[in-house]
């Protein structure tokens, strides 16, 4: 029972790690970036290549799995994405899906279509017993990283001026500019961080979810579910939503395996019908 709870939490955290970058770009910047998964994939491949080709230790690859996609995000933002903020969401969908297709094919070309494996360090392998429940070390590690991320992001967004400036810039970029907010810098920085977080998520998730060129498409739905169910106005929303979805999914599959596949979708539909702005959206 408790093991299931733990597994659910861990799975939820994994979802969050993957989706929090999207919570930033879609949720806060209101940019429909379906290419989120491509940045996550980039992070995963950075880690895989560094570990498998150059023998870099796992932990050391993580900062790079953040930085490389963040830089890529920054470059793309400055050159391409920035032209699309003012466009319709449909344009954004088309554009970012185009990028996904390109990324999928390019990675396939460069790295091959097979699964990439990474070997996590031995001290993260295996399980220990805490309070009588078996917990996987790697999953605990993810939970810890995730906790840190949530606290840090929440702090930046609610306690600093950066957060309110960002939301102001999203609400009305034209007027925000006219009131002295440097919208371009804020967007670029946020986008880069969002991409970096995606990359980090990809690197952390590769061990459990696998990594191949179709990654961005395969997991797109999950990212979107988390962000939508959580509501797009905060970071805590998607965080709590990930927890809820993770636990419900794992518990559902454990107790009623025959309906396992329906749990997450039905939960999403029910939540969204009852609370169209997301479960944890700010009151409007």
């Amino acid at each position, binding site marked *: 029972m408790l093991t299931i709870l733990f597994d659910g939490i861990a799975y939820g955290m994994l979802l969050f790690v993957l989706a929090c970058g999207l919570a930033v770009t879609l949720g806060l910047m209101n940019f429909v970036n379906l290419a989120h998964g491509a940045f996550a994939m980039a992070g995963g491949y950075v880690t895989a290549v560094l570990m498998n080709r150059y023998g870099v230790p796992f932990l050391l690859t993580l900062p790079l799995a953040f930085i490389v996609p963040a830089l890529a995000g920054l470059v793309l933002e400055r050159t*391409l994405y920035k032209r699309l903020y003012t466009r*319709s969401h*449909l344009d954004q969908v088309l*554009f970012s899906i*185009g990028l996904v*297709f390109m990324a999928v094919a390019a990675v396939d*070309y460069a790295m091959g279509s097979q699964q990439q494996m990474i070997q996590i360090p031995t001290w993260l392998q295996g399980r220990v017993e805490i309070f009588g429940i078996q917990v996987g070390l790697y999953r605990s590690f993810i939970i810890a990283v995730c906790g840190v991320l949530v606290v840090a992001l929440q702090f930046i967004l609610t306690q600093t001026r950066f957060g309110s400036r960002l939301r102001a810039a999203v609400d009305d970029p034209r007027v925000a500019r006219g009131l002295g907010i440097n919208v371009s810098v804020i967007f670029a920085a946020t986008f880069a961080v969002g991409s970096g977080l995606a990359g980090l998520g990809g690197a952390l998730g590769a061990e459990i979810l696998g990594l191949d060129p179709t990654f961005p498409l395969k997991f797109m739905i999950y990212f*979107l579910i988390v962000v939508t169910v959580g509501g797009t106005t905060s970071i805590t929303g998607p965080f709590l939503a990930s927890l809820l979805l993770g636990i419900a999914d794992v518990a559902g599959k454990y107790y009623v395996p025959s309906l396992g*596949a329906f749990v997450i979708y039905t939960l999403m539909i029910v939540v969204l019908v009852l609370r169209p702005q*997301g479960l944890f959206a700010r009151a409007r």
Partner: protein
Amino acid sequence: MQSNTADKVRSALSRRGRWSLGEIAFWLVAAGTLFFLPERHLILNEIAIIGLFALSLDLILGYAGIVSLGHAAFFGLGAYAAGILARNGVGDPLVGLGVAAIAAAILGFATSFLVLRGSDLTKLMVTLGVALVLGELANKMSWLTGGADGLQGISMGPILGLFEFDIFGTVAYTYSLVVTFVLFVLARRIVVSPYGLSLRSIHDNPLRARAVGIPVNRRLVTIYTLAAAYAGVAGALLAQTTQFVSLDVLAFHRSADVMLVLVIGGVGYLYSGLIGAVVFKVLQDVLSAWTPQYWQFWIGLILVLIVLAGRERLTDRIRALWPRSRRSLAADSPQPLQTTTAREV
């Protein structure tokens, strides 16, 4: 002065209903392909079907502003309805179309209540969820649907008891094209009517729409149901002309592709779906014949370029071929979709 203005008003309003040369040419060319491109009838058939499917999405997205990432639910249901019917001995294609339309319309009506509220993102995800659940159901109910192996043993009778489907796809294409055309004419009629205008107004500003007495929810439910029926017919066409149905009629990529097709074509003037289908399918066919492994890269690049080059400007230009859609009177370029519909008063 008075009558002068009245004339102008009248002509501005009824301009939208008239068929233009561009439109007539479009359909003549479409009909011409029956004779000029005999080897391409198979892919043309697919284009016609996808075009109809995208047309149905255009009815809700382009006119009523309901985004959907689960439109395949209706397509798939229509396909299965027609397929199961044909497998169980009712081989008449038109009966199949009718049943598929009704089945999809019922599902559309039932699920329309889920998409009345919430932001675009919410609608995307709810519709997606419906399609995914339906896909899982079809997988689970393999006694009826054949599950992952697909539905086999479909044998179609001749259309109207006269025309047998042939291996060249000519009858299939003719059939799909005619059905698409008939449904297009109907849709065209609908969107230039007062009812169609009210849909656009809801898209634009639901709060104000209510304040001029438009029963917003009821309008949305009807158009969603109608669009579902259209999608069901498209699905049925696919099932009947390929005589096979498998789970991927309900798959996510089906919904996503139709969305791409529609957006490429330009959303909101009915031809968008048809033109998008032609562009997308032809590109895909050419590119994947050229590089079966990496064609996606080039499709992706083209999508990116289309957007960067100003997709809306491109499609506006196509739109300009239709006089009724003069800039100001067009079902205009999509407004930036709002993430919140809660408009403050």
